[in-house]
């Protein structure tokens, strides 16, 4: 009787173990499926020509996505500059003033901001920048993306700095170092790996955002580096070309999807590597 019940329980335990394996593997399946599908559809398109040329008009074959790659890089870089400078400052404020009233409101608004749909942020950027400046521009797209990056950077900076021991700050203050230098020469450099990983994740997160760019950067069939004018970006190109009826454009969208996917994967891997390399041993 007893031996039987033990056997039954062992069996149940074994079954449960197998179930966890299966479900854990199931997490990987969608990623693998996406990778496989996009690689199969996109890889044939990718060549040097595809990377350095702009799309051809309908009816002509060939063409590339150089305008979208350059545009995406410019838009994201500007967004990152805006979001990193504001976000790190706000994160420093939050970690230094844990209980102030302003800190409470900043935390609340970053949490709310994180939940605001990206299309809404696009519309806001449209009313704040596109309408007053009378024209779509890459800059307004950057601002919309920067707003999306802010909560991630602010909170990751705060969480990283909060974990640093107070003794570190006191060591610098006791040497007569003014507060701002303590922050930017000691606290932020020591926490740089955590802050950096937040920044990289934020960049990876916004790289594929389409909605905030629809009414801001707008898209551009030609190569443009003028941030005051409409500019193409990878997600916009995919959105526009994938919904078109032309085979050539559809292929272009597949290729662009692959580039975007590789880009995001690369950012994630780079984040892990840099975080490990820049980690300051306390």
């Amino acid at each position: 009787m007893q031996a039987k019940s033990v056997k039954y329980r062992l069996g149940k335990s074994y079954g449960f173990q197998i179930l966890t394996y299966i479900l854990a593997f199931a997490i990987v399946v969608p990623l693998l499926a996406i990778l496989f599908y996009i690689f199969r559809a996109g890889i044939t398109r990718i060549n040097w020509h595809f990377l350095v040329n702009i799309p051809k008009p309908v009816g002509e074959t060939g063409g590339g996505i150089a305008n979208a790659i350059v545009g995406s890089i410019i838009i994201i870089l500007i967004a990152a500059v805006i979001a990193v400078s504001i976000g790190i400052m706000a994160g420093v404020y939050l970690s230094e003033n844990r209980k102030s009233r302003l800190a409470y409101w900043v935390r609340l608004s970053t949490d709310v901001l994180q939940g605001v749909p990206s299309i809404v942020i696009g519309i806001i950027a449209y009313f704040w920048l596109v309408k007053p400046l009378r024209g779509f521009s890459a800059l307004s797209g950057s601002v919309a993306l920067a707003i999306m990056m802010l909560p991630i950077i602010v909170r990751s900076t705060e969480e990283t700095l909060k974990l640093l021991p107070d003794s570190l700050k006191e060591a610098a203050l006791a040497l007569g170092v003014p507060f701002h230098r303590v922050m930017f020469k000691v606290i932020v450099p020591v926490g740089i790996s955590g802050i950096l990983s937040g920044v990289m994740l934020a960049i990876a997160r916004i790289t594929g955002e389409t909605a905030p760019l629809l009414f801001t950067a707008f898209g551009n069939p030609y190569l443009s580096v003028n941030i005051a004018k409409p500019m193409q970006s990878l997600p916009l190109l995919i959105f526009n070309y994938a919904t078109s009826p032309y085979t050539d454009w559809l292929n272009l969208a597949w290729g662009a999807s692959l580039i975007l996917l590789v880009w995001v994967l690369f950012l994630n891997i780079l984040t892990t590597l840099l975080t490990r390399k820049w980690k300051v041993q306390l």
Partner: protein
Amino acid sequence: MESSVIKSRNFNASFGTNHVVKNVNIDIPRNHIIAVMGPSGCGKTTYLRCINRMHELIPGANSSGEMLLNEEDVYKMHPIFVRLKIGMVFQRPNPFPNLSIYDNVIAGYKLNGVKLPKAEKDRIVEHSLTRVALWNEVKDSLTKKGSFLSGGQQQRLCIARAVAMEPEVILFDEPTSALDPISTSTVEELFHELKANYTLIVVTHNMQQAARVSDKTAFFFLGELVEYDETKTMFTNPKDNRTQNYITGRFS
């Protein structure tokens, strides 16, 4: 008559409603080692942190009365100038983990944005590390990170960092409580070397250490300065009953 470098007059400190240092009057003579001892929670560390205005960094901290450095009230000076003249060494070694040993020594200059010629920096680093008896141990690994050293070496590095700024007074907040016995005796030997150029104020909860290293001893109890006298007198012939009880181990 020897001159006093630090004088406190009716000095009080508190955290919110918790009155931790009560009406302390003390004169600290130049180039002496002063031990500040007392049981845990007696306000000795708080008093020490008031001298270089580190106390006020804690939210809710308050202080009143006069704290004079060379007859000038430190509470009327900018805290940054106070801390340049009064260095501090903490309970746990806290070298900057992002800086090399070399940069840790000159951190006070580097972090304040003072540009020094390379030769001058080299001189300060060698001089400061020699003073804390660390030069021979680290001269070949100056570019390694400060956290690469052992605990005792790190604490001496922190002392070198304070010494490099050429302050008048160096405060030590239980500097050996996180160190092993050998490192502790190395640091204690250093105190005698440093006395020639600086005034040292050492908070310790270790009576033997106070007896070993100091010229004068201050005994704090429940926030009051109970007794302040030559260390020899204090340990052989205490005037106050509470001091007597403390040094004979009646309470700790």
